[in-house]
């Protein structure tokens, strides 16, 4: 076990993926000499050269669009979108090209592209630097979407995403970038397309992913003081969803609360709640509740502590569910 930050864990995961496969390329704005604005790619250009670690022109559509062309030559591009709010200029290339070319060619063309997006709020950033666009990709058939929550998962999930022959939108919770955790560099990783119970409990199930995993774990610890035992599930994979552990959990606890930073309407929580109601109807003791960001553009950062789900809102939802 090695203790490191999520940034370092991603960096070492990228490094291992590049060592394992010479077809892996890393591209993006400022990712070369600077090592990325978050330093996730630090040192990679020095060690792998500017042919495999490329500083690109400032052009998001081109970053993804050229990655499409590179896959036609057998490369496996890992592209960095500098911030969540900057992904929209590339949206057409992602949803109309990356997501569809395998399907359009009836399986003849593969798009093993990883699109890394540092996402989410809580760091006091300016506009366009705190968004959670994961649902916009999760609803696009042909894309897979994952989000890591801690350094160990970040280290392994990035390697698995790169090894995947399908395109993966890789959501990195930037507010957790600098938090350290244990990384088992020799572990057999969990399969990429699986969710996991990060804290077992019996009184209610919190279902979440990415930056909210830690918040939910904090909530569960706080709830202990009230004698409540909360189960916390990290979805990890947002598309495809792996809901088997969720269904099994909710059948035990009878209460489900979905927590995410993204806006509520048509967010991941809506899909999870719908699927829980299909699968767990007779086990539910309360409606599935959601604790989410509100349906508004991301607010100015001095209001984000009220906008983002926090411990109190989560515990209030638990109380409402249990009192139902």
């Amino acid at each position, binding site marked *: 076990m090695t203790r490191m930050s999520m940034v370092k864990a991603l960096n070492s995961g990228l490094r291992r993926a590049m060592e394992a496969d010479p077809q892996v*390329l890393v591209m993006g704005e400022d990712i070369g000499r600077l090592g990325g604005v978050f330093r996730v790619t630090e040192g990679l250009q020095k060690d792998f050269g500017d042919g495999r670690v490329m500083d690109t022109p400032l052009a998001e*559509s081109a970053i993804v669009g050229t990655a499409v*062309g590179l896959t036609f030559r057998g490369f496996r591009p890992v592209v960095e979108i500098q911030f969540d709010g900057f992904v929209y200029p590339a949206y057409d290339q992602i949803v109309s090209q990356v997501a569809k070319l395998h399907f359009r060619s009836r399986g003849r063309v593969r798009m093993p592209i990883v699109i890394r997006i540092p996402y989410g709020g809580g760091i006091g950033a300016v506009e366009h630097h705190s968004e959670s666009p994961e649902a916009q990709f999760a609803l696009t058939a042909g894309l897979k979407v994952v989000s890591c929550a801690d350094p160990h998962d970040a280290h392994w999930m990035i390697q698995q995403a790169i090894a995947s022959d399908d395109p993966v939108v890789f959501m990195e919770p930037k507010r957790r970038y600098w938090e350290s955790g244990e990384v088992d560099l020799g572990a057999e990783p969990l399969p990429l*397309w699986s969710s996991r119970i990060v804290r077992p409990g019996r009184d209610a199930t919190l279902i979440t992913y990415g930056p909210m995993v830690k918040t939910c774990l904090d909530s569960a610890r706080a709830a202990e003081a009230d004698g409540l035992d909360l189960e916390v599930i990290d979805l990890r994979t947002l598309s*495809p*969803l792996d809901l088997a552990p969720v269904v099994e959990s909710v059948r035990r606890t009878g209460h489900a609360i979905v927590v995410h930073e993204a806006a509520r309407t048509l967010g991941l929580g809506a899909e999870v709640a719908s699927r829980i109601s299909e699968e767990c109807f007779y086990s539910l003791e309360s409606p599935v509740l959601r604790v989410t960001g509100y349906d508004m553009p991301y607010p100015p950062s001095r209001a984000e502590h009220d906008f983002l789900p926090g411990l109190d809102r989560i515990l209030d939802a638990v109380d409402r569910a249990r009192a139902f």
Partner: protein
Amino acid sequence: MDPSNDPTPPTSPLTTSPPMVQLLSPSGERVTDPRHAFDGDRAEIEALYRDLVMTRRVDTEAYALQRHGELGLWPPALGQEAAQVGSARALRPHDFAFPTYRDHGVAWCRGVDPTHLLGIFRGSHLGGWDPAEHGIALPNIIIGAQTLHATGYAMGLALEGLVGTGDAERDSAVIAYFGDGATSQGDVSEALDWAAVHQSPVVFFCENNQYAISVPVDSQTRVPIVQRADGFGLPGVRVDGNDVLACLAVTRQALQRARDGEGPTLIEAVTYRMGAHTTSDDPGRYRDASEVEGWKAKDPLERVRLLLVAEGTSEEFFAELDADAEALGVRLRAACQQITEPDLAELFDHVFVESTVENQQQKAEHVAWQAAFEEVAS
């Protein structure tokens, strides 16, 4: 001067200057140009003429099939055959093309069976051929998006060391096709900039057919398209897009520059879409008949026929070609109706390389639903 020999297209002031490279006049006479030459023999010109005739036959046949209700839609390439055939014949087998939905002549030259094109517009599939086998990607409908794919492909060629080695069997290039309307799209500007910055082995081939559906080129841009190259730092060449010899010569040179590691080129082929944007369109609403008539005199096929006749090509050649075109038409009419219908159940298997539980569950749900329905029907 015979007006039909005037190389200047009558449409827009944007297409009058700078001058175009022309090697064959509309009345079928060879023209010299200080920068470019076509040095092929008569057999090569006959082969090009054959491609032009066959491309036009694919196009007119598909148009007729659409009118008979066999295709949902067809984007005619009528009038643009020389731009497509001339440029595509400049490609070598190991080069690669990224076409639009109108580049039927490019697909023809890359050995794609035209039945695949019919299948797209019949709604039976979304492409049909193997891009790696033919060296041509599936047609792209999102305007200009494929110029970035071509640029990425070109970067890949450079990374693989397939550029500038001096080995003709190895050195490769890529060509991106797009229209005049596409030059208004951000992706095309990003592609031109990126390719210039990286000196990527890509040729940007703009078929300026004067209209983006109904909007004329002078409503798309304030400068001639070819001049955009200057701003991005790559060479630009304007060519008579109805002159197959000039299109071939200019593209050949640009592709060779790319293969030699000298970077990208922008080619503006000045041509004219004689037909509608698609069969759903009514060009009579947005352009004068006189304009179309003016371009008829610059037909890309007729001038080659006149040249060949003057150079002594036999009547048998033309008769055999007519017969071949007719046979192609007959084959396409029959093949169109035999294109297999898509099987939705099978399509589930192509969403991902590694299928998902959800994917397979929905497939099973669909198959079971269909089976139950068929049981009731029987």
